[in-house]
């Protein structure tokens, strides 16, 4: 095993610190700027910055800031994983990096076909951003994915890609696809086309938000229950919400950890399926050949 150089170690430590620092910063920002709420309060992201802009005001909210923090964290995590990468494996993280790359590529190939191998980084980006954003709620921060705008942005990008790949076989082909299987179903087809990104966005956003809503409700309910059962205890003992210790952690395991990862996977899966389904390689090749033929005749 080759000796680790000082530069390698310094870079390692730097990347690790830079991975953790944004999360710490997020917590600090939350503590400093967001007032703590009492009781049952379910609200959207806090607004840090509001400016008049054409069409609609430019708002920098907690969701935006948190997603930027996640991005910085991910950037340095990537740098950390690929730090000192070599042909002969000599670090554990290299195995992890290779596993991530190979797994995502295999997933993309299986779901979308060989033509879309270049989509692996995109799918990995969706999964990482979605999963880490959702997992932010574990630290007590506002998870960006429980803001509709964030997820809508991703879904809109996916919609653009779907339309782009449908257009690749020709605009006429794209328009014709709405009249299938029978022309009078065209309105339904258009609705289903528009519904795709909306359903994706609302599915993801709704799952994460409902998790935090249920967490808040259960916390409040447990407080009420403690008051009902142990309210007779004297002094502060009667006030202290004993049942809130520990129990919400198990619920958080499902609502934050499991649900967050599952939604990230579902979103990535749907992205792959929709984009993969939007494009048929045979039609594309047929169109190209036709083009070449018409070119050669003229």
């Amino acid at each position, binding site marked *: 095993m080759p000796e680790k150089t000082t530069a390698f170690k310094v870079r390692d430590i730097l990347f690790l610190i830079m991975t953790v620092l944004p999360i710490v910063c997020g917590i600090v920002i939350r503590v400093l*700027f*967001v*007032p703590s709420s009492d009781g049952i309060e*379910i*609200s*959207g*992201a*806090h*607004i840090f910055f*509001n400016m008049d*802009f054409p*069409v*609609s*005001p*430019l*708002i920098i*909210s907690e*969701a*935006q800031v948190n*997603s*930027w923090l996640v*991005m910085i964290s*991910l*950037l340095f995590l*990537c*740098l950390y*994983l*690929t730090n000192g*990468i*070599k*042909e*002969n494996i000599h670090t554990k993280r290299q195995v992890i*990096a*290779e596993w*991530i*790359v190979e797994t995502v590529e295999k997933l993309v190939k299986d779901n979308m076909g060989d033509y879309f191998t270049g989509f*692996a*980084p*995109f799918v*990995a*980006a*969706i999964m*990482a*951003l979605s999963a880490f954003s959702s997992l932010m709620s574990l630290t007590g921060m506002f998870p960006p994915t429980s*803001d*509709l*705008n*964030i*997820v*809508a*942005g*991703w879904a*809109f*990008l996916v919609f653009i890609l779907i339309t782009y790949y449908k257009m690749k076989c020709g605009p006429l082909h794209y328009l014709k696809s709405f009249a299938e299987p029978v022309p009078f179903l065209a309105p339904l087809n258009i609705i289903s086309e528009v519904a795709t990104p909306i359903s994706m966005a609302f599915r993801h956003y709704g799952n994460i*938000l409902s998790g935090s809503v249920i967490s808040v409700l259960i916390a409040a309910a447990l407080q009420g229950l403690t008051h009902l059962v142990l309210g007779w205890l004297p002094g502060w003992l009667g006030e202290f919400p004993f049942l809130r210790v520990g129990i919400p952690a198990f619920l958080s395991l499902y609502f934050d950890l499991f649900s967050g990862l599952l939604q990230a996977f579902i979103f990535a899966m749907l992205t792959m399926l929709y984009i993969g389904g939007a494009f048929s390689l045979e039609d594309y090749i047929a169109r190209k050949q036709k083009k070449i033929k018409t070119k050669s005749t003229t």
Partner: protein
Amino acid sequence: MQTLDIISVNIWQIIISLCNLVIIFLIMKKFLFKPVKDMIAKREAKVNEVLDEAKQERAEAEKTKTLWEEKMAASDEEADRIIKKAVAKAGKRSELIIGNANSKADEIVRQAKAEAELEHKAAEESIRHEIVTLSSALTGKLLEREINPDDHSELIDEFINEIGEIS
């Protein structure tokens, strides 16, 4: 501080989020997928190189092996040839030596024979001489006069020769 509504749609926020996803895609591509894929490609190239090298070396080893085997066979033949040659040479030489020895021995024998003959002749001569002197002395005594052996030697020789022929 203000908060957003639970369901609020803001076009700029959507665009910012869209750009965020694009940026994170570029980050993933450049800082995670590219290094790993480059490294995998490099590793593949290295493995292929090593395999090619091994193949080449094996072919070379096989070549040298056949070469050595040929050489071994050739050397066996050559050894045979050399031995045969040496044996032939030695045979020729021994024949030569034996021939020489034989001829030398013959010469020695011949010389010895010649010498013996010469000696024999000398002895004969001396005996004859003695007989001449003896007979001359004898005849001188018989004739009571001194005979000059030189004068009568011819006569005596004739006599002796006659004796020799008779004997």
